[in-house]
């Protein structure tokens, strides 16, 4: 009988702790990490072997990031930044190329491209490549928009 009480409690505590830990992990930059912004900043994002050079970036609210994307692979990639709706559209979309609108760009083999995106509200914003198989291969990351008092 005691187990019936204890097990759910232990599980609940563990899950809560895990979620809290994940939230802390996502929302808090590690020691020594730069938190960019506010204002306009530039970031170099490399792509090699179908992987982004970083999978997490911390910015303050009110930051406009200018992504300079350098693809050193012999195949094309893309960088899509945005909310769930944006990613859903690209996951199900059939566009082979994206015109350089803010937060959406294609980058060909051995090419470099630019796109900008403004991060205003605290939270996380996913960036990814949605060419077939690329997201599953690990081409994704998040931009963490910290609270205004973050370092």
């Amino acid at each position: 009988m005691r187990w019936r009480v204890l097990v759910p409690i232990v599980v609940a505590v563990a899950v809560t702790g895990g979620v809290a830990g994940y939230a802390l992990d996502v929302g808090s930059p590690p020691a020594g990490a730069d938190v960019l912004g506010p204002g306009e900043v530039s970031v170099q994002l490399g792509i090699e072997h179908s992987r982004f050079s970083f999978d997490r970036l911390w910015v303050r609210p009110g930051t406009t990031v200018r992504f300079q994307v350098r693809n050193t692979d012999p195949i094309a990639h893309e960088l899509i930044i945005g909310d769930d709706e944006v990613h859903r559209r690209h996951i199900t979309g059939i566009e082979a190329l994206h015109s350089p609108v803010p937060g959406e760009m294609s980058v060909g083999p051995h090419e470099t491209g630019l796109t900008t995106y403004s991060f205003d509200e605290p939270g996380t914003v996913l960036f990814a490549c949605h060419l077939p198989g690329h997201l599953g291969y690990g081409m994704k990351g998040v931009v963490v928009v910290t609270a205004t008092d973050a370092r």
Partner: protein
Amino acid sequence: MSPYRVVVSLIVVTVILFGTGPPAWACGGLVGSNGSIQLVKTTTLAAFHEGVQRYVTSFEFSGEGEELGSIVPLPAVPTEVERGGDWTLQRLAREVAPAQPEAFVDASAQATAAAGARVLLETEIDALDITVLEGGGDEVGEWAVANGFSLTPDAPEVLDFYAERSPIFMAAKFDASRAAELGQTSGDGTPIMLTIPTDEPWVPLRILGLGLGADQVVEADVFLLTDDRPDLLPGGPGLTLQRSEAASKPLLADLRSDRGMEWVPGGMWLSYLQLEAPAGDLDYDLAISTTDGRPPSAVDAGIEGLGDAGQIVDGQGGALWPVGAGVGTSIALGMGIAVMVWRRRAVRPEELAI
């Protein structure tokens, strides 16, 4: 026996891919114009005799009508590419599965290729367009893209993996219209034989996982024929030795009677290995030594440290780890001695004098 008087025959057959997604095959990566081609089965034979490796593989026409291609990592530049024998691959497969002759359906291929890579050789064999390329992973990848193939996201890393060891690749693709003219239908195979001067044979295994999900299981049959029992070094787990015995006289006679196979000597050692590994774990190759006193190359096995080396498990239950351990110990000992010699040389006062 001269160190070069060795024959290594490698045949990879019946690659079975589970699940969906871009295919992989026994000796090359398969890539289609839409990135969603299903690979069926592939048969490959590489033969090593007197410093020359003969590499035979069979490409299976899919009948889809679209261009398919495959890319095969090679240990060195081939001097000749020609049509292979008609039954060599099938006969080898049947040797280990005599009760199921239909199980040796051979392979197919598709591939990948590139821009900026140097084209060393181009030829047509039946409906196949064969191109031998020299270049880095990037260059071969670019060539593939430029020739209309959609590479899977893991291709850049896999091509670099092989290019660092050998910058030679063979790309092959079917010309659908020519296949139609020749009356080829879905499932028809075209065997290809390459003659490659080299003294260090290896079997590419990692390429089998190209385009697959990490959990998708790659299965392949690998046949080796050598003058003597070979030393084998797999770069990871997943290989099981099913046969290790003197090749039968009827088998060798049958192989010798096939087109281009007259080099087969009167006696050989047959090793038959099965590969079964998740694609995510298949980040290695199989290195082979056929020379007494020279262990298989850890580099050719696709590993940098001996700690990564795998084990070949004996199909009868006995592990072959002692072989791997012996090889590994030999390599470690050799490296140790080399380091000691180097260090000793480094402090010789006479060498420091200006």
